[in-house]
């Protein structure tokens, strides 16, 4: 069991090992956020338990278009900062099309964080295999601090959901999750995700979720058959 640390707790006297969630002052490493203390031989970090989504380069996020401009789109990514998707970063853009013919206000997209400047101006890109405009399926919103649980250890939870329900899932690091597939199965997945979000302790959660899906699947089966 890993220890819960609070801001200001002394973690190490060696500043070289300082990682995420820590800060250095006078050559000592302290925790700066509430979280779980994670220590390896070369690195120490604090895994956050709470907090808003703060983008980092390379994150896959699900966003909603909020504004259309001549040179791109302003996208809400459920964070303190709005992101910008330039037209040059959208492969769907063609010379004879205007930006609002490709993405309109209210459209959802899957994109990657390309760059963040020191003023926290976030630039997105859709030039990636998994990026696309979302025109079908469903979006589920959860607390971004719970995203690692929905993914599971080495993606075990996602594999379970995909395998058991035969659906497509993309988990945005910002806590928005896109699900696509058979409508009833998507509903079960949505309930399962909310269940994962709510469970405070994850001991054996994967098994419990598997059980939950089995039960819901048989319920649905009875109703239709």
């Amino acid at each position: 069991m890993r220890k819960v640390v609070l801001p200001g707790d002394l973690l190490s006297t060696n500043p070289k090992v300082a990682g995420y969630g820590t800060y250095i002052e006078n050559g000592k490493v302290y925790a700066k956020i509430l979280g779980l203390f994670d220590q390896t031989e070369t690195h120490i970090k604090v895994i956050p338990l709470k907090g808003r989504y703060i983008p980092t380069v390379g994150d896959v996020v699900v966003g909603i278009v909020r504004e259309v401009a001549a040179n791109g789109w302003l996208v809400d990514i459920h964070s303190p900062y709005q992101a910008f998707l330039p037209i040059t970063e959208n492969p769907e853009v063609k010379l004879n099309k205007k930006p609002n013919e490709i993405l309109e206000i209210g459209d959802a997209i899957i994109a990657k964080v390309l760059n963040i400047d020191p003023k926290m101006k976030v630039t997105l890109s859709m030039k990636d295999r998994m990026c696309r405009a979302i025109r079908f399926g469903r979006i589920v919103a959860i607390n971004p601090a719970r995203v690692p649980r929905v993914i599971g250890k080495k993606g075990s939870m996602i594999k379970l959901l995909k395998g058991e329900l035969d659906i497509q899932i993309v988990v945005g690091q910002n806590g928005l999750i896109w699900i696509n597939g058979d409508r009833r199965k998507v509903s079960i997945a949505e309930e399962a995700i909310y269940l994962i979000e709510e469970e405070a302790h994850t001991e054996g959660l994967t098994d419990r979720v598997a059980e939950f899906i089995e039960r819901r699947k048989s319920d649905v089966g009875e109703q239709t058959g």
Partner: protein
Amino acid sequence: MLASKPDKFIIDGKRLDGRTFDQLRPIKIEANVLKRADGSCLLEMGKNKVVAAVYGPREVHPRHLQDPSKAIIRYRYNMAPFSVEERKRPGPDRRSIEISKVSKEAFESVIMKELFPRSAIDIFVEVLQADAGSRTACLNAASVALVDAGVPMRGMITSVAVAKVDGVLVLDPMKEEDNFGEADLPFAFLIRNGRIESIVLLQMDGCITRDELKQALRLAKKGAMEIYKLQREAILRRYILEEIDELSGDENA
């Protein structure tokens, strides 16, 4: 309506409510009590009942308040109309504006606001029932709420007041001691790794000597350490259940 001035504050080395000079009033702290806030805390300190809520970092409205280099911090101390013996007219007054300002400055020195440029961290503290030292109770509650919200900070803030009655310094004054005492000194400290690092708030009203100020500081430090332990316990109690231990998956679908 208001309690009248007692003849003596100290009888046989005991205070009016039976406490010794360096004893705190009973304290109860509970973290994460509000669903819609990012972080929250309910705190009772004697007859004080306060609730703190933290939102953010979030987008700043209106836009012109935005700071491109760091987050702005907003703190609002507010008393409910029913919190005092005689109904208080709702809305901010001179006293609450001043308390909000000094409290905000206390938090500005510990929150790592340069991590969130162009954003705002909003702290709202509501006094539901007031006794003496409601500003210190609010600071303690706000500190727990900020930790609960996952806001990066250099350490935690713990606050306590010292008063002078009948020529003696007493810790954590109650209403009579505050209203009719000779001096009242609220303190707030930055506590890091279980040690008091610095003073982040210091006010004084009344008359004390230079030596008494030093003595008051020692007394406040002792009280602050006790409160700090309770603040820690309140947060750990809430999060000890949380175990994302087995997870370290960053892989995406």
